């Protein structure tokens, strides 16, 4: 129990440190939100002014914007560690690697939830989608989706942070792994917006949960190897 409490304390310290750096430097939030807004606007232009068509495409557009912007966010959060050898120092602390992963993922989760909520609101306004009655289910989808993106992103950003071509490598590695999450999140969002006529919402949310658990366990088990530098 003490070991768990100690790891939780370390994870919270890492997440708090990332949150403070983010609040002051706005490395991830501003660029990520602008990027998501641009993605939504461009998709809107590409699909044309047909409001029924835009509303039908809204779940897919929402999650494409969240995932693309999420790539940027997790990358930016790991770039904090490239300041003046910070990543090496982080690896040299005598703490559990699981706790460091959990802290980085928690920081990423916070940014992703904020991003998901803002993009959801933007989709509602831009594509005239009524999200009034569906907000509890939509919020659950956003939270579970954000957790999955943060779990996967923290792991892969740990791999690519030392690479010169990290901006190219991160999406190449992350997007195929995120395909099940994208599918489940889009389906859950669509079901929530349409009032869940076929009773499928719970199944998609369960799939999202299973994805999150699997990715978190994989990340917790393997992140330590990524911190070792050769």
């Amino acid at each position, binding site marked *: 129990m003490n070991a768990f409490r100690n790891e939780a304390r370390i994870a919270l310290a890492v997440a708090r440190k990332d949150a403070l750096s983010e609040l*002051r430097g706005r490395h991830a939030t501003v660029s990520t939100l602008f990027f998501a807004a641009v993605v939504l606007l461009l998709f809107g232009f590409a699909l044309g002014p047909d409001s029924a068509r835009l509303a039908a495409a809204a779940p897919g557009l929402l999650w494409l914007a969240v995932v693309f912007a999420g790539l940027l966010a997790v990358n930016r959060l790991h770039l904090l560690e490239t300041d003046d050898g*910070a990543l090496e120092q982080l690896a*040299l*602390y*005598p*703490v559990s690697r699981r706790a460091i992963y959990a802290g980085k993922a928690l920081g990423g989760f916070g940014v992703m939830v904020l991003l998901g909520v803002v993009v959801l609101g933007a989709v509602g306004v831009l594509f005239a989608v009524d999200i009034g009655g569906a907000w509890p289910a939509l919020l659950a989808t956003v939270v579970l989706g954000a957790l999955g993106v943060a779990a996967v992103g923290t792991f892969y950003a740990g791999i690519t942070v030392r690479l010169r071509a990290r901006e190219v490598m991160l999406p190449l590695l992350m997007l195929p792994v995120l395909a099940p999450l994208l599918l489940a999140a889009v389906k859950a969002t669509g079901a929530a917006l349409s009032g869940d006529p076929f009773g499928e919402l719970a199944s998609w949310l369960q799939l999202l949960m299973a994805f999150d658990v699997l990715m978190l366990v994989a990340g917790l088990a393997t992140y330590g190897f990524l911190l070792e530098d050769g």
Partner: protein
Amino acid sequence: MPQTTIYVSPRSLGAPDTRPPAVLTTDLARLFAGSPALAGVSLRVDAGRAVGLLGANGAGKTTLLRILATAIRPSYGHGAVDGYDLGRDAAIVRERVAYLSHATGLYDDLTARENLRFAAVMLGTEDAAARVERALDDVGLAARAGDRVRDFSAGMRKRLALGRILLGRASLVLLDEPYAALDADGMALVDQLLGAWREVGVAVLVASHTTERMASMLDGSAVLERGLVVEVTGTGVGSTPPSLPGTSRPVVAEAPR
């Protein structure tokens, strides 16, 4: 300059000769892209001794310190800190080693105090709030504790990184060019810390070009040349016999191109 308090584990106090060597390496080698930065270092540094690591640029000083800090793994050979293997017991070694590298490992958007508070949590420092304030005072940054590190000079960053070492309970301190970027007061601070660590029985391995300045504070020194120990002088340091025959030859050589 205030009197610095060095916190040490009970294991660092007592009779030094009963403790295992602070550093013991055998045939330690590290290749980068096929070229040996360390070619087979066999070195012993006794517990509680201050030893200088000398040599020209590229001799392998930084690589040796990074391996001892567990920042990188050796390509060949093995080493131990306080009797704990660098590979198998890396987690224990990290509890016992403090490392000041060229990079300070600080977060630009955090203040000096926030950087040390984060380090205190990661190092499991007891009575962290008071220790952080004490460390800030010890390294002469109490007045700038609330300023973001982004606005600090290279010398101030190095002072803060030294303050981070004061939060731990290391039994081996590795310093890579500790005088670089420091003004006269900063250099005096390093001198004071070297003396304090020596007094309480913490082993120190210092890589530096400022040999004259350090001479009176060191028990001994080892000279590295092209990744090999070529000379050992003084007390508390020795070159252990390599496990391979042909002791004067490196255990790894330049890769064919």
